[in-house]
């Protein structure tokens, strides 16, 4: 190859020169233009995890229940009675910024197929969203488009969206975050794998036909796309079709039930290229593929378009040759395409032909295993200065006004306007719908077991101290599960950051991983999968440079031994004493209160106190499981005052409460780890105190539930706030005020 041609091929990859050299080294030659584009996509940060892979190894990934950890399409954990769950979260931030409806919809479709690839029936979705302040028209447009897209896909595909989050900050204005998680159920002996095996086995393409979707990206200069047709005439985003997605679920589960399928993977990012190379590399085998046999939607597609198309609703299967018709028949019965496009070969090379000509011939692991970087990391300048916060300098109104403002804040306000757009009941498993600390699903096939689900992440905390912030987010997720009475089984995460090429951003990434790891270790919960999204940057970002806040989101799933005893968050009976479980004090550093009234993040979130937090969480779980408490709710954004108000609204009754002595703003609105507001019949107070004492968890009786208003007073004389009284109707009006 001439030198000029080699330079062109390098440009086609869109990769740094050092990566290109590495490709040539591994291949022993220059890649041809088709191969170059394949490397370009597979070695992109999105597919290759070049900046994150080394750091991610720090996460704890095992527990006696883990059947499949990170590395597969989704993690799988045993839940007992012969059943397992598959769980995975993924980001669709950039597509959603470009086209909120289709970007979010295809995000849902994509995560569902990851779960399906484990052989599991998808049974629940979570969505974790970040936008700019909703009074900004652009943020509002993005928000309503994203919510409509999630609803449009999730509702039609028949998987309930049972929970999520919505948080707002200026840094997300132009770069929203859209993270979706999916949970599936599978018999332990039916868990599917993606490693191809069996020389001579058929490679079966199934699902929707391949079109020119999502291939306007880096590797394609517009002049090369197609003779005569202008770029403007072509879609640059992927579109989902939930109808086909639903058929794909049913057909795939039927195909897997034949027992003929030995490996399966979805075709997501990088499409056929990714599925072929990863399945072959994991199985240490090769594949011989004939592109002429790929079912196409349009005539005249070029080989590289077919190889890199990100058309939705497609799966790739390896099937024992003599049984391939049985698997294909399942897809055809549902009206989907199913074609054998090649064979598994013992010789570990990926060979692709088109029009009888070999166009790709390379070792699959060279595509699948992108190089691992060791990026520089640096503590951001001025970190410790930003940790200093004078609470008195926060320009906040009096406590009554502040409480109402926080209840109206989009981060706190009821998300009813969102989750009522989602079918959260289809599947008849939803015992606790969205609106509580955690959603609860029953296991129809293994009563009375149940699962609780939550997703939590706090960019404010992480912008101040990523290690504490991420640990606190893990603690909050476990606290939410405890309120339902669930024991944490597994975490999947989505790590949203700016450019890892900037040392201060990369430092926040490393700290975040450390924080998640420490908290998961303290709780004994493994991280069974996740997703990293870098380069979340845009004008208006307020974090480091223009980046979004470092925003790790953790989705956590837990097990209920008896779903009929799931906890509830609303006060349940007039006159029930209300207690605070956990340390009474909170911090204002990087709290919602601080940020809402001061606009920039200042101060430092509290120490996660992992040991104490783990004990408090275990204590609450036990209290719920043994039926000691009639309600319990953890205090998160907005602190204890907000948690009390939420329990009032959810229970439809007021309360009379005296908060402990201390600085007003800290005691009312300060945030801290694993603190719970519970109510219970008076005769069980002793038993609860004893349980708390055994776990070394502080308990304070605050007052009692009931009456038409929330009365809040504070103990102590000097400096204590004046008592306030807020009628339930006023609380409800403030909290239910969010329109999306």
């Amino acid at each position, binding site marked *: 190859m001439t030198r000029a041609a080699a330079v062109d091929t390098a440009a086609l990859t869109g990769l740094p020169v050092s990566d290109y050299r590495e490709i040539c080294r591994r291949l022993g030659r220059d890649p041809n233009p088709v191969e170059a584009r394949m490397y370009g996509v597979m070695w992109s940060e999105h597919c290759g995890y070049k900046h994150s892979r080394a750091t991610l190894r720090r996460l704890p990934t095992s527990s006696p229940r883990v059947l499949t950890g990170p590395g597969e399409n989704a993690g799988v954990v045993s839940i007992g009675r012969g059943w397992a769950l598959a769980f995975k979260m993924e980001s669709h931030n950039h597509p959603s910024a*470009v*086209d909120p*409806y*289709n970007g979010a919809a295809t995000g849902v479709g994509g995560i569902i197929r990851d779960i399906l690839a484990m052989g599991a029936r998808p049974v629940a979705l979570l969505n974790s969203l970040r936008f700019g302040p909703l009074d900004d028209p652009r943020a509002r447009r993005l928000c309503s488009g994203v919510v409509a897209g999630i609803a449009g896909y999730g509702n039609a595909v028949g998987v309930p969206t049972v929970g999520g989050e919505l948080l707002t900050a200026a840094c997300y204005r132009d770069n929203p975050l859209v993270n979706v998680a999916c949970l599936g159920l599978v018999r332990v002996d039916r868990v599917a794998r993606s490693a191809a095996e069996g020389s001579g086995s058929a490679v079966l393409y199934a699902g*929707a036909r391949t*079109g*020119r*979707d999502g291939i306007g990206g880096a590797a394609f200069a517009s002049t090369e796309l197609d003779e005569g*047709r202008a770029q403007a*005439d*072509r*879609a*640059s*985003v992927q*579109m989902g*079709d939930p*109808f*086909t997605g639903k058929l794909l679920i049913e057909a795939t589960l039927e195909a897997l039930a034949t027992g003929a399928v030995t490996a399966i993977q979805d075709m997501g990012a990088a499409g056929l290229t990714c599925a072929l190379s990863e399945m072959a590399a994991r199985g240490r085998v090769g594949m011989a593929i004939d592109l002429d046999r790929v079912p196409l*939607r*349009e005539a005249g597609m070029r080989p590289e378009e077919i190889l890199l198309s990100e*058309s*939705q609703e497609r799966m790739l299967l390896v099937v024992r040759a003599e049984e391939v018709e049985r698997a294909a028949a399942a897809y055809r019965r549902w009206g989907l395409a199913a074609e054998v496009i090649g064979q598994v070969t013992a010789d570990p090379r990926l060979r692709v032909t088109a029009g009888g000509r070999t166009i790709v011939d390379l070792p699959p692991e060279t595509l699948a295993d992108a190089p691992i970087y060791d990026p520089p990391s640096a503590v951001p300048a001025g970190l410790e200065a930003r940790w200093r916060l004078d609470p008195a300098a926060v320009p906040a109104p009096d406590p009554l006004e502040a409480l109402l403002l926080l209840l109206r804040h989009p981060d706190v306000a009821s998300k009813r306007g969102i989750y009522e757009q989602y079918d959260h009941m289809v599947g008849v498993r939803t015992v606790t719908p969205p609106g509580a600390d955690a959603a609860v699903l029953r296991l129809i096939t293994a009563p009375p077991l149940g699962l609780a689900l939550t997703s939590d992440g706090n960019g404010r905390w992480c912008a101040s101290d990523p290690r504490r912030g991420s640990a606190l987010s893990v603690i909050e997720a476990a606290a939410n599960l405890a309120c339902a009475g669930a024991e944490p089984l597994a975490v999947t995460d989505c790590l949203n950051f700016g450019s890892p090429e900037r040392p201060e951003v990369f430092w926040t990434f490393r700290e975040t991983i450390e924080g998640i790891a420490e908290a998961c270790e303290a709780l004994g919960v493994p991280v069974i999968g996740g997703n990293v999204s870098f380069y979340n940057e845009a004008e208006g970002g307020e974090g480091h440079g223009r980046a979004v806040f470092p925003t790790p989101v953790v989705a956590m799933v837990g097990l209920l031994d008896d779903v009929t005893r799931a906890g509830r968050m609303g006060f349940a009976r007039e006159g029930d004493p209300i207690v605070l479980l956990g340390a009474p004090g909170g911090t204002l550093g990087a709290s919602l209160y601080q940020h809402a009234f001061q606009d920039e993040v200042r101060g430092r979130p509290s120490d996660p106190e992992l040991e104490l937090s783990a004990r408090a969480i275990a204590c609450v779980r036990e209290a719920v499981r043994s039926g000691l408490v009639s309600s319990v709710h953890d205090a998160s954004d907005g602190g204890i005052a907000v948690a009390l108000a939420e329990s009032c609204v959810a229970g439809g009754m007021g309360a009379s409460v005296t908060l402990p002595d201390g600085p007003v703003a800290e005691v009312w609105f300060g945030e801290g780890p694993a603190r719970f507001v519970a109510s219970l019949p008076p005769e069980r107070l002793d038993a609860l105190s004893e349980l708390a004492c055994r776990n070394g968890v502080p308990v304070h009786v605050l007052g009692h539930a009931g009456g038409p208003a929330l009365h809040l007073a504070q103990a102590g004389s000097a400096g204590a706030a004046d008592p306030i009284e807020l009628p339930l109707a006023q609380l409800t009006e403030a909290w239910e005020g969010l329109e999306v």
Partner: protein
Amino acid sequence: MRSFRITIMLKPGVLDAPGQAVERGLGALGYQVGQVRVGKVIELILPDGERATADEMCARFLANPLIETWAIEEIVQGATQ
């Protein structure tokens, strides 16, 4: 004050799931049809009467320029359905 009819269609190559479904439904009823495409039509009255305004509304709001194209025609009095 002029009336316009705006027809919004998916760009060629974009998956037209509604079109496929309609083709299937017509087939089930025994009709042989080809190349079915489904789009939207929006009729409206523009007080300023400017076609350019209609075009701008399409680009900003009525259509999704990433996946759709549009055509604007004036509805001439009496010539409507």
